């Protein structure tokens, strides 16, 4: 049976993720309430504003924040793009804003400066094949450091930030040659960029594969539910 992917629909580019998921033959379900999470096999946290999503999940009698945490703890796959990667991170540089703190990464918000320095480029992502993947960064974050249990999947040249004269008050470390912009930690996948804005669906296909694998792992672990 086709997988059902929930798209957290409190704010952000929800329709773009739905399109990508549906084009790949899976079912997309827009999620606004905690009880809907029971219906999905995987969850996407879209692009948007991380302070907005923090407010809407924390200041919410529906406890959707706790339900997403429990979903992650169960080992269910979650993919965060841009804002989603910030929301999943353990550490956000210089900010105490709300977050799921599920993934062992430290992120820098808006790492390239204001919108005029947002950019598109092509990234090498060896796990997705030899052809470069088109990537759109919109006031995007970068991953400054990742724990040993995190697999780094893609980098962007640190010169991009320097080229674009980052307006961030933090100091630029000249010894850094590249920033991490895509990574995985077991059931968690994050990207600083927005594959949902391009026609190349390999990142979403990779996430759907994670979801398929997770479903079969759950079936194996609970043989009483297997169809005889």
């Amino acid at each position, binding site marked *: 049976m086709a997988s059902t992917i929930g798209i957290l*629909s*409190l*704010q952000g580019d929800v329709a773009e993720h739905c399109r990508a998921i549906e084009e790949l033959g899976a079912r997309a379900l827009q999620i606004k309430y905690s009880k809907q999470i029971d219906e999905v096999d995987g969850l996407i946290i879209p*692009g948007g504003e991380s*302070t907005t999503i923090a407010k809407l999940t924390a200041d919410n009698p529906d406890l959707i924040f706790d339900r997403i945490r429990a979903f992650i703890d169960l080992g269910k796959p979650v993919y965060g793009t841009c804002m989603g990667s910030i929301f999943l991170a353990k550490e956000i540089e210089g900010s105490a804003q709300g977050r799921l703190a599920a993934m062992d990464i430290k992120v820098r918000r808006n790492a390239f400066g204001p919108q005029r320095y947002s*950019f*598109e*480029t092509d990234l090498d992502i060896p796990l997705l094949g030899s052809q470069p993947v088109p990537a*759109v960064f919109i006031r995007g974050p970068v991953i400054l450091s990742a724990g040993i249990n995190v697999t780094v999947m893609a980098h962007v040249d640190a010169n991009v930030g320097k080229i674009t004269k980052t307006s961030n008050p933090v100091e630029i470390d000249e010894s850094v040659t590249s920033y991490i912009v895509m990574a995985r930690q077991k059931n968690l996948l994050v990207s600083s960029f927005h594959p949902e804005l391009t026609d190349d669906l390999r990142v979403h296909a990779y996430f759907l594969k994670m979801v398929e694998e997770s479903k079969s792992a759950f079936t194996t672990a609970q043989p009483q539910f297997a169809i005889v």
Partner: protein
Amino acid sequence: MAVETKETGRGDIRTGSEKVKKALPKMLKGGVIMDVVNAEQAKIAEAAGAVAVMALERVPADIRAEGGVSRMSDPELVAKIIESVSIPVMAKARIGHFVEAQILQSLGVDCIDESEVLTPADEEYHIDKSKFDIPFVCGARNLGEALRRIGEGAAMIRTKGEAGTGDVVEAVRHARAILGEIRMLSIMPREELMSYAKKIGAPFELVLKVAEEGKLPVVNFAAGGIATPADAALMMQIGVEGVFVGSGIFKSGNPEKRALAIVKATTFFQDPQVLAEVSRNLGEPMVGRTAASLAVTETLATRGW
């Protein structure tokens, strides 16, 4: 098109492309953009969950009350607001005033509103927005106006409504006009599309695109007169993708509470229970005046074409 290309080992870096400009408003969907006149208000807006702030010297209600020529805000004020928040900052340039737009872009604002709320600098021509590296949002009252602005390079459309009134009726009129015309286009036989493009004064290619896709090719928000959570939810249910709130928040009795209530109402726009909850005890709304009571010379929506 000002596309900066830089060779790196991993491919070109392209800033300011049409794709990059149209992408920013997509990240704001389902959110509320709030007018603020200083850094303190900007922080309140951010803490309440605004997706962006619009930096300006006077909110539309004050522009109405005080009169005079209304121009781009002092760059010092815009810069201070940019420093005070992490969310995107927008600012307004006068219709046709491309030099104000150049200044705002150099200050590092994330998006420019070519706005009828300010006194127009050009009564014939709007800004050529395709020349800029950052996105523009423009007001529109109907589909023809929206498509003309998109043709000039706008990356986002908002209804004009009637700013500074606290009366939502014009925003409703404009949203219904735009969305209704899109619905009509999507069932119109192809041979009628050219005449329709001529009739509404819109670029034919964009009319074709809207007819095929059944939606505008850019993000579409509501603006102009939204003052309550119910107003925001009304606009969302009518079919826009997010809202601008101008005078409605900081001209009300309890801005913090009202700002958060409007943010929640924009997310849970289809949930009357949430709407009832967030609408309780908000204090005094902005006083407002009915759009119908304005003299023709007082209307802002008729600025621009």
